[in-house]
């Protein structure tokens, strides 16, 4: 039995090292001089720590704006998609009204379509509204969520009807039932959708590349792409930029990892 566990650990450690090497190399390279970074064989630890790589990169691009734009986009997308998905999901799960199934079908259909099909017309909408290079442009496609509506509907369907009926007898109207009874019960679903929305917005590269082309309006994702254009082979500075870009989400993940893991797991098992 003990020997079997050793074998498992060896396999898992090999995998973990593979996962960590790129992060380690990013961090170590970001602190080297340009000359040391290209040395063969490479040094596994910086001979001298060049902290100025960070300040140079920070000063060469508007990273503060990148942070504000990224978290602004994530914040408004979470507010929009969680709130609107929750109201729609509750109505689709519990209320009866003519055309309900047809409308739900309409929402579902969009989940099966590759998102790139929406991009050209979405860009044209943003352009026609005169909102190119704004926070609104970054937020717009994520204001509502077909996936979120589907996910939360599954949660609401799993809540016993008796709870609602008791509230109806107490004289609550539909909104009060939704707000005071159902939403608290679907909390884990709301958290799952919030985390999923944040991750999706965080990782989206193509939409920001298309709508926000002036540096001050970019989120981190497309900002990094322009950093690469600027310092194509100065890898210590590129790596410093990468570290600046990834640490906030890595730290958030390590603090809230239970919620992250449960959130992601929840999006699978409920589907």
């Amino acid at each position, binding site marked *: 039995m003990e020997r079997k566990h050793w074998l498992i650990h060896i396999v898992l450690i090999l995998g973990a090292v593979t996962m960590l090497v790129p992060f380690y190399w990013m961090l170590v390279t970001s602190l080297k001089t340009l000359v040391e970074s290209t040395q063969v064989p490479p040094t596994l630890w910086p001979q001298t720590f060049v902290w100025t790589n960070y300040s140079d990169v920070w000063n060469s691009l508007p990273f503060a704006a990148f942070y504000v734009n990224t978290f602004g986009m994530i914040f408004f997308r979470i507010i929009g998609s969680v709130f609107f998905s929750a*109201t729609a999901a509750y109505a689709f799960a519990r209320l009866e009204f003519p055309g309900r199934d047809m409308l739900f079908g*309409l929402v579902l259909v969009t989940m099966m379509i590759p998102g790139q*099909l929406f991009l050209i017309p979405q860009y044209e909408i943003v352009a026609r509204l005169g909102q190119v290079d704004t926070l609104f442009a970054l937020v717009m496609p994520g204001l509502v969520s077909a996936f979120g509506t589907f996910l939360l509907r599954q949660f609401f369907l799993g809540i016993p009807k008796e709870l609602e009926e008791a509230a109806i007898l107490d004289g609550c109207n539909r909104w009060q039932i939704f707000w005071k009874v159902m939403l608290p019960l679907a909390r884990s679903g709301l958290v799952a959708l919030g985390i999923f929305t944040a991750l999706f917005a965080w990782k989206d*590269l193509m939409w920001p590349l298309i709508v926000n082309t002036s540096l001050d309006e970019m989120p981190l994702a497309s900002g990094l792409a322009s950093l*690469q254009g600027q310092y194509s082979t100065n890898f210590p500075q590129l790596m410093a930029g990468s570290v600046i870009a990834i640490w906030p989400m890595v730290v958030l993940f390590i603090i809230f990892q239970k919620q992250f893991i449960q959130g992601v797991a929840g999006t699978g098992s409920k589907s």
Partner: protein
Amino acid sequence: MLKLTRRRQDYAWGYLMVAPTVIGVLILNIYPLLKSCYLSFTQSTGFGHAHFIGLANYVRMMHDPDVWQALVNTLIYTAVSVVIGVFLSLVVAVLLNQHIRGRGIYRTIYFLPVVSAPAAVAMVWRWLYNADAGLFNSLLQSVGLPAVHWLTDPHTALFAIIIVGIWSMVGYNMVLLLAGLQEIPRSYYEAAEIDGAGPVRQFFSITLPMISPTLFFVVVTSIIGGLQVFDFIFMMIEPMNTAMEYTQSLVYLFYKQSFMMGDRSYGAAIVMLLLVITLVITAVQMKLQKKWVHYND
């Protein structure tokens, strides 16, 4: 009478509560879908102007070697990354489902790439793959092997990108599969042990059938994700790179045509092709699932 007003009220609440999402989906998804479809039958002549040219974009696509090569690249990327990526995720999930020490730490480490922005991930891998001073070539040279031009050699570039794709997806699928594994009742394994079934037998007769619905979900979503690969190609292969032709995906070609060359109609036709491929592959999987996916209820 009371019941009737209650029902009327439910109608009103129902429409009110679904309105933002339904209107949003109509404007942001349904209209764009129809518009993209329409665009693919037109020729764009500057901003907002287009005239109908029937199937000409599709005919042009059929004679465009870039499109065919991009289709091949996309399918290779998807097939290889899904087969290897899902296999590795399943192995890690099964190992982490044992009672071993440090499960939480392993899980955290494997999930780290998932929370990292693809642009940063692509940059560090581009550095690892760098032909002159990258870590991989330094290691090769230190044991006397020749350097490999990972990202500029047409024979290796796509596979170099596939490795990055697998590296960044394993953690996500592992978490989904682990959740599925944890729903399998312990008692099944205890019963199998009493019957004398070994670990291999247990895996194939209990674990695999019980996990098959989650596995199916993981395979379907990974294929859809693979067919849309863009970020790593955009960040790791420069436009003038000799390997571009052998790495660019359909979505990359769509981006290039629509937003770099400004030919939105042709770009729209390329994503219509992607839509058809996605629907066909998903439909085939829905049919095939009856053969291997076991649903309890």
